[in-house]
């Protein structure tokens, strides 16, 4: 009984983790950017979605849409205000761009977090469930919303897979992640590909943020925690590897759920952190990473 409960709950939370980490790994794979304001962008989507759904009276579905658009806008603002100036700056040596992007996005993440708390609220916001009611799966009481969230996550992940593997634009993304110089030599404009990947990223982070708000609730203060968990899932799976992140999300999600149910809810994050340290020591490139 508890086993089944873990299986179902773990599946929903893992799907959300997967969706949250997907954009993070995609951006790194294609453009080499580790965006530490990731959690902030998710929080923007969640708070704006909640605001639109509640205070503006747009209802849950339109609110969700507004939240996703907010995530997209936030991603573009991050790209144009923080990432591009650092990449274009002539005062920053090439080999130090990475640390500047890390510090810059970190600061930007803090600004988002404090700005959200000041403009709107620092209480956790919870969206109304997308669908009400509960159902029984093999005797386990499960909110329908939980099933809905897992389904949406997988639909979005499926669409992403189709986009990357089956469309010309997606194939350009893939090529950019493998050899950007080769792509430039073939006459493709890298900056347009980057614009495209940031759009995908914004939508992914937006959907993940809004769904998280509807499942567990999101507060501006949790932005840092969200970034940290996306970062660790992505490293566990292998930086830049989308399927690796998918596997890692389930490993982390289930590990946390099992700990919470069988040992103690307070110890929830610890086994996953220990596993992460172990993996990084033994196999630094992660489960499916390239070196």
């Amino acid at each position, binding site marked *: 009984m508890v086993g089944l409960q873990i299986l179902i709950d773990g599946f929903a939370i893992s799907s959300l983790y997967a969706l949250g980490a997907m954009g993070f790994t995609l951006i790194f794979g294609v453009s080499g950017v*580790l965006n530490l304001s990731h959690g902030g962008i998710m929080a923007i989507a969640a708070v704006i979605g909640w605001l639109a759904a509640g205070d503006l009276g747009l209802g849950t579905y339109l609110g969700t849409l507004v939240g996703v658009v907010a995530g997209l806008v936030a991603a573009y603002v991050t790209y144009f205000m*923080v990432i591009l*100036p*650092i990449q274009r*700056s002539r*005062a*920053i040596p090439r*080999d130090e761009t*990475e*640390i*500047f992007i*890390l*510090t*810059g996005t*970190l*600061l*930007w993440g*803090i*600004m988002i977090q*404090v*700005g959200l*708390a*000041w403009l709107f609220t620092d209480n956790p916001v919870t969206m109304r469930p997308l669908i009400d009611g509960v159902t029984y799966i093999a005797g386990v009481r499960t909110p329908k919303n939980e099933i809905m969230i897992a389904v949406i996550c997988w639909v979005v992940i499926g669409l992403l897979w189709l986009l990357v593997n089956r469309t010309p634009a997606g194939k350009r993304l893939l090529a950019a992640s493998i050899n950007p110089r080769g792509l430039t030599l073939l006459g493709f404009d890298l900056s347009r590909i980057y614009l495209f990947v940031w759009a995908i990223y914004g939508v992914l982070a937006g959907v993940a943020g809004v769904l998280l708000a509807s499942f567990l609730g999101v507060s501006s203060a949790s932005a*840092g925690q969200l970034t*940290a968990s996306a*970062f*660790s899932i992505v*490293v566990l799976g292998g*930086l830049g590897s989308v399927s690796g992140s998918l596997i890692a999300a389930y490993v982390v999600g289930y590990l946390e759920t099992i700990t919470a149910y069988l040992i103690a809810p*307070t*110890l929830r*994050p*610890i086994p996953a*952190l*220990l596993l*992460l*340290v172990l993996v*990084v*020591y033994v196999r*630094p490139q992660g489960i499916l990473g390239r070196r």
Partner: protein
Amino acid sequence: MKTLLRSPALYIAIAVVIVAALLPLWVSAYLLGILTVAYYFGVFSMAWDLLFGFAGEVNFGPTFLIGLGAYTAAILDNEFGPPIVVCIMAGAAVAVLGGLALAVPALRLSGPYFGLVTLVAVLLLQNAIVIFAHWTGGEIGMTVPDVLSIDTNENYWYALAFLVVCAILLFGLSRSAVGLILQASGQDRIEAQALGFNVTKHKIAAFCISALFSGVAGAMLIFYMGTASVDTVIDISIGVQVIIAAVLGGRRTILGAALGSIFLILATEFLRPLGQLNTFVVSAVALAVILFFPDGLLGYVLRAGERE
């Protein structure tokens, strides 16, 4: 030595230290309290700069080392109550062990991977403190029975003297042969090895030194404040503050890191009337500095001097 004695920077530095030492004569106790904390943060940032600016290691967890030093000293003081010096030395020793634990992965991993390990180290320490709440006071924190001094001025002078001593030691180290070798191995490890330098030994040394200073500063900070809590010495936001201060002041300058810390803490304090927004403004200023003056404040001044 001769060039050092002739350089105007030395006399400016001496003048600044003298002015800082005389501040208690006319500055309010409130401001002195803030400066005292800022000086300890200056040491945190300088220790971080040695590791990042010189050894090239992206350490996202300066608070892992600081927290180890602080909590070791606090627990020891609470349980057995030896003299403060013994507590601080014990804190420093444990912090150095923590530095060694970080040095092992640093030798194998690079860039973001090592950064993540340090981040995870902080999270694990934070969790450990909550789990062993019996000794550590958990999320609430613990009070420390002994304090350095109850006099504001004395506390201020302790902090200032500590900052100056650390600054001289770390700055001297960064300008010595060891500092140059560290810088070389941070920039191009293979070439430094090819030139016959023992990169591994130097990096381990850099971690131990950085940990030593972080640990002592962390322990002294809690003996100044009289409490140790996750929010004041371990939380990731504290680590972020240390890193921002070092980048703001100028990487690879050591002294810039201290100036950056003092500026950052004073700015946060003066913007307090803005309420919650002060963190926003300070982060925005720091972001602007990174975008427009990537060498940091001191780095920019030094570059400008070179250009002339």
